[in-house]
């Protein structure tokens, strides 16, 4: 199934102003409705290795699987939506690859990565995430953070220890409570969302949202929505203008039109006999 023409995708990644390496990785396939962003961590180049493995495994495997599997159908053995099943399996696969590399090669010891993946199908998207890379949605004039970080600060905010305003002054930034490749098993948080034409989705690493306020992100998405590539570059540039202390990656997805699943009786029958 192809979504060709339904989505416009633009992206930009940059090492920032302070770091010499870019440990973020991004990958996308607009026709398959698939975008992946990972923010790696680990000494020397291990962070790049971890994030690169995550994006490569997930995008290449899902591209192949989506040729055969239909994301909005129910997976018979598990009773889950195929989209969820595929994401679960491929994230587990990426986790195992990174974990084994980290275990077997000393220079990769302890490497890991955050992850945010969005899969678009049937006027919906399924978002899976691990760690503090985020997905935001701009609908009309409202920017909303869709994912909730797996981080110490988010846990403190949730339990009322600190307020979101105080969190911006915390010294405990960048402490994630979940990451890919650190343990033999990882659980991604997976949710479904309805999409609408003209929605803009932003996937980003913490290098963007730590340096640029949500208000400025929202303004950029609204103002530059007609030129998505420029918008992505502008967001990275703003983070750099504000200090660029970490690697900065953004992927923007604009929904151009509806993309419902084929729902004709014949289509369904075909689905049953596959």
């Amino acid at each position, binding site marked *: 199934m192809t979504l060709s023409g339904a989505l416009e995708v633009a992206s930009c990644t940059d090492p920032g102003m*302070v770091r010499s390496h870019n440990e973020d990785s991004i990958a996308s396939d607009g026709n398959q409705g698939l975008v992946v962003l990972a923010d790696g961590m680990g000494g020397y180049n291990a962070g790049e290795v971890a994030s690169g493995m995550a994006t490569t495994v997930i995008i290449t495997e899902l591209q192949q699987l989506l040729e055969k599997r239909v994301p909005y159908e129910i997976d018979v053995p598990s009773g889950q939506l195929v989209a969820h099943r595929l994401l679960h399996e491929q994230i587990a696969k990426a986790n195992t690859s990174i974990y084994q590399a980290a275990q077997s090669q000393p220079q990769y010891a*302890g490497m890991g990565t955050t992850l945010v993946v969005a899969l678009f199908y049937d006027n919906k998207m399924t978002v899976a995430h691990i760690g503090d890379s985020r997905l935001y949605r701009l609908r009309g004039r409202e920017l909303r953070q869709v994912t909730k970080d797996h981080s110490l600060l988010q846990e403190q905010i949730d339990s009322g220890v600190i307020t979101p305003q*105080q969190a911006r002054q*915390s010294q405990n930034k*960048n402490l994630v*409570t979940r990451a890919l490749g650190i343990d033999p098993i990882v659980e991604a948080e997976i949710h479904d969302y309805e999409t609408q034409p003209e929605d803009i989705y932003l996937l980003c690493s913490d290098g963007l949202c730590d340096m640029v306020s949500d208000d400025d992100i929202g303004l950029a998405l609204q103002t*530059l929505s007609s030129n998505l590539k420029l918008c992505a570059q502008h967001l990275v540039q703003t983070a750099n203008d504000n*200090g660029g202390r970490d690697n900065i990656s953004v992927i923007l997805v604009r929904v151009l039109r509806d993309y419902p699943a084929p729902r004709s009786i014949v289509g369904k029958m075909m689905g049953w006999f596959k």
Partner: protein
Amino acid sequence: MAKLILSMDGLVLKEIALTKERTTIGRKPHNDIQIDNLAVSGEHAVIVTILQDSFLEDLGSTNGTVVNGQPIKKHFLQNNDIIELGKYKLRYVNEAVAGQAKAADFEKTMVLRPGSVKAAIPAPAPSAAAAAPAAAPVAAAAAAGAKNFGDSVAGQSATAAPVAPPKPAAAPQKNGALQLLSGANAGKELDLTKPLTTLGKPGVQVAVITRRPQGFFITHVEGAIFPVVNGKILDAQAHSLNDHDVIELAGVKMEFFLKT
């Protein structure tokens, strides 16, 4: 590691490192910081430290706890905060903030893993859980990954990276504005106060002026025709604007100028 400097009448009495998850302050001898003064309650206040962050909480003391002149019940301590208890002053110093060179290191993302390290932090007292419900389990999970990621400095020193990154939101000193030179609104002025200001007609020709620390820039956004500055057609790249540049866009001429 954050610390407190206890002083009275400008005289430093001692320094206390905040190594424990709970550091108690009060008049009675069992407190971590004992201040033997009648203005201080038996159990006056407590500082809960979670990794690099410390929170001060008054324990219902008779005379209250004051931070930077304001009475507080609960307060998220920031570097150089002054805590006042009667005549005594406690200055909060967080070296993570003070040591700028180390700041970049702290930006490194690390993983917190529950139960992986016995921790420098002792098991939280039962009352800690009541004071900060989630803080206790979270703080018990220490940063095991930290060691593995500590060698980032090696790569960094190789570059000419600035030690202290530029301050955020450094707006240009001068304000910019546009004055329309032609069209129906000729003579009108438009202040460029926002980080982004779009000009033109959506669907026909749009350009954006970005306000950056280095100054103002114009960039083509959409349309087949590109903006013209001082008679020269721009390409897709951002173009730096100088005082009194003349911009032509969607058939309208306007002048960019800097305001003092």
